[in-house]
């Protein structure tokens, strides 16, 4: 029964002949294209302001594109380009996250970051980094010497010369946060469609008519948040001034045993010639190493490459000599929707009721809530009364199940069910709840991100068959062919 409620939220306009149908003839106020972290945050912002908002996502779950693969760091913006939209959105997004995360039970690991210099050239850069941070208003950023660095991070190799300390760089759960945003939006009246790829659209002077392969949807305003497809979708309205040039980043996730090797996030000194890698704990208790930075023409195929990963391990070992003794539990690649420009490409087309939110590169997780507020203001300034914002009511605050290391998990308190995924401590109850939640998991990826099932060191050796049984008929594509062999 719970599942039916979840479906209602997602597909009610088509599937159920209830009171929703009477509204289906009305155009939507806003259609947000793209269910990445930015699309989820914007849907939330508009829904909370009483705007009838629909989110369209081409994948089978939110976060099916760039947003599913990042380093999960909540950045202060200390190294962002000064006076950029990016910096403004990051700072606003950062503050709002801290403000609302407690209410939604979203975890934050307050570990801080260290920008570590490994040679004389990098050492010379540190003062400039501190200066820029102060210019960006991050005033607690300071230089620490070699000795202090060693005492803070005894696991680092001897080559570490000094560092810039950024005390308020944090680590978050990159998947629960956007899910919480959309859940709150849905409770405020927004709807969403998965497997709904926008293939085209026409503007009749008043309304947009967007086509997916199943239906035509009408709305007053379109907000394009399609990440790596941003320029393609922008062409539905106009020729974009930017081009998406996807940048691929490959990552390695190490087993939980490795997490104690560091305390803070270890950042590289940025340089135009060498691209360093980040070492950070994840909120789930693993250690993350990456990303590489590779230009690539394709928009979807985020392949990992054995030789590149091997090099990444060597790079990691130069930072943390003990790293290679730990087990790699996952490898992944993410595509950043970078453009030829440094700053975000957020703009409104006043004639055609369209807002493009593009070029949201790796800082999108941090900035998303700030971007949402920025877009709301841009909308009000550009379109006036086209979209009516109501004064905010007291919103519903969804309580997300915390998957963080050290947080109280269902297996610890005991939910009456057995552990199914032993590597990540996921119970049968956890899985059943994710399948019947407000926005239920409809794909394996969605289930993994909601529960962490099959995300551990064994990659499903112990639990995948059991997960296939528990999810029978509920995931597309299914884990296994159903019915008797």
């Amino acid at each position, binding site marked *: 029964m719970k599942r039916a409620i979840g479906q209602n939220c997602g597909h009610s306009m088509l599937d159920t002949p209830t009171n929703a149908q009477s509204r289906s003839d009305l155009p939507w106020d806003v259609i947000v294209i793209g269910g990445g972290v930015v699309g989820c945050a914007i849907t939330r912002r508009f829904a909370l302001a009483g705007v009838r908002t629909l989110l369209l996502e081409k994948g089978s779950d939110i976060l099916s594109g760039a947003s599913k693969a990042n380093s999960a760091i909540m950045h202060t913006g200390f190294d962002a380009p000064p006076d950029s939209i990016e910096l403004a959105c990051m700072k606003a997004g950062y503050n709002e996250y801290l403000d609302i995360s407690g209410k939604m039970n979203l975890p934050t690991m307050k570990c801080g970051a260290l920008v570590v210099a490994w040679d004389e050239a990098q050492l010379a850069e540190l003062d400039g980094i501190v200066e820029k941070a102060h210019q960006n208003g991050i005033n607690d950023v300071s230089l620490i010497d070699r000795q202090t660095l060693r005492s803070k991070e005894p696991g680092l190799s001897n080559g570490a010369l000094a560092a810039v300390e950024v005390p308020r760089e944090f680590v978050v759960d990159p998947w629960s946060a956007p899910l919480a945003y959309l859940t709150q939006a849905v409770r405020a009246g927004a709807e969403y469609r998965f497997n709904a790829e926008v293939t085209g659209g026409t503007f009749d002077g008043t309304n947009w008519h967007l086509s997916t392969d199943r239906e035509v949807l009408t709305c007053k305003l379109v907000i394009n948040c399609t990440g790596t497809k941003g320029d393609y979708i922008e062409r539905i309205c106009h020729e974009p001034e930017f081009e998406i040039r996807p940048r691929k980043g490959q990552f390695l996730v190490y087993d939980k045993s490795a997490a104690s090797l560091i305390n803070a996030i270890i950042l590289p000194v940025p340089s135009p010639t060498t691209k360093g890698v980040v070492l950070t704990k994840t909120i789930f208790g693993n250690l993350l190493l990456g990303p590489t930075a590779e230009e690539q023409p394709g928009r979807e195929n985020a392949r*990992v490459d054995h030789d590149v990963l091997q090099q990444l391990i060597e790079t990691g070992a130069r930072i943390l000599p003990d790293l290679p003794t730990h087990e790699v539990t996952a490898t992944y690649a993410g595509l950043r929707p970078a453009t030829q420009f440094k700053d975000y490409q957020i703009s409104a087309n006043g004639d055609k009721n369209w807002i493009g939110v593009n070029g949201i590169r790796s800082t999108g997780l941090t900035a998303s809530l700030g971007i949402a507020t920025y877009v709301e203001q841009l909308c009000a300034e550009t379109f006036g009364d086209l979209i009516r914002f109501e004064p905010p009511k007291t919103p519903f605050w969804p309580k997300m199940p915390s998957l963080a290391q050290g947080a109280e998990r269902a*297996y610890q308190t005991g939910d009456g069910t057995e552990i199914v995924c032993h590597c990540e*401590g996921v119970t049968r109850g956890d899985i059943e709840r994710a399948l019947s939640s407000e926005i239920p998991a409809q794909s394996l990826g969605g289930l993994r991100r909601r529960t962490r099932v099959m995300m551990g*060191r064994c*990659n*499903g050796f*112990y639990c995948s068959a059991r997960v*296939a049984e528990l999810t029978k008929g509920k995931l597309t594509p299914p884990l*296994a*062919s159903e019915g008797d062999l």
Partner: protein
Amino acid sequence: MSSHDYDVAIIGSGPSGIGAATALSEAGIKGIVVFERETEIGGIPRHTHHPSFGLLVFKRPISGPKYIQALRKRCQSVRFETRTTVTTLRKDGYMEIATPKGVKTIRAKHIILATGARETPRHGRLTSGLRPQGITTTGALQQFIYGANMAPFSHPAIVGTELVSFSALWTLRSAGIRPAAMIEESSRITAYRPAALFARLLRVPIYYNSKITQIDGIEKARGLEIEIADGRHETISCDGVIFSGKFVGDNNVARASHLTLNPTTELPLVDQNWVSSDPDISVIGNAVHPADMGDHCYIEGLSAGKTVAEILRDGIEDYEVVEITHDAGIKLAAPSIVRLKRQEETKINISFHVNAPYSGNVTVKLGDEIVHQTSKRCRPARRITLKNVPITEAKGRDKCPIHVSLADI
């Protein structure tokens, strides 16, 4: 000091755990419990439904579930607690266990870790490509086919040619699935040669000297690209990939605990009686030497259980610790230390695996003295055992390391 909930708590109900429980029970130990995190006991044999167990113990091949049933009958008085996961190991016999009711702390006089081994999956191997569904391991495959009566694919490729790779072949065959190919890095199969005939009989091509350069497919697996040593590239059409073998000890509970690990293998350090660096904890079976046959593990469990009964009775006497080192060509060796009682000679069995095939003498030296030399034919992924290697107390006291070498010396 609080009292103990159990005399012995065994973690893991595979062949080695059952073996230990049986020996302890036969030695008259009463408070024995076996914790199993799955809903059924048995470990890997639980989901290996073809007859690859029992040749040594029952003198006939029997299926995994029947094997476990038969072993279970030998220790009927022992309590098995399923759906119980050990989450934390502490000193003095304390541990935390999670059951459907939540986590609690219990205490045993002695703990035996028999947590077994698992295969190295796709990510641990850093395999290139996309991340579609349908990428699995033999262990998972068996649970799909035999346990859930479901198939994650209809024409997968098998990576590896260890014994377990042919077990994957057998499992698929029982479901009427003919794999697209088997892929082997080296120039011959890792399992015994006749196994290749089994693949040929089933018309499954084996690609030798091959490595995967790409896994293809966005949602579902679509194919594999492989590079063969002579530079040729081939595309294999398949809708899944089974990564078989390359077993690793499932030692995450041990690794997160106070136990000392062998620095080269990252597996818990154990002595000739499987006692770890903490005299209250033993580690047995494939958790310390991934991965040997079920029968070997059961027999080892029996012997370890007997020792633990003695430890419970007599305690561990004053001893010296001698380290066992080995050549780089040896992948792992168990035991990795020897505890020597004062003024005694002891004879130990040393098991090991090799990285590459080797035929010739295997030599054990205690300090400068050769104490054991035998001719062995060694293949990777097979257990080689040196029996009754004499270790004398005098040498032990000098802290001479024991060194295992793949050479005549």
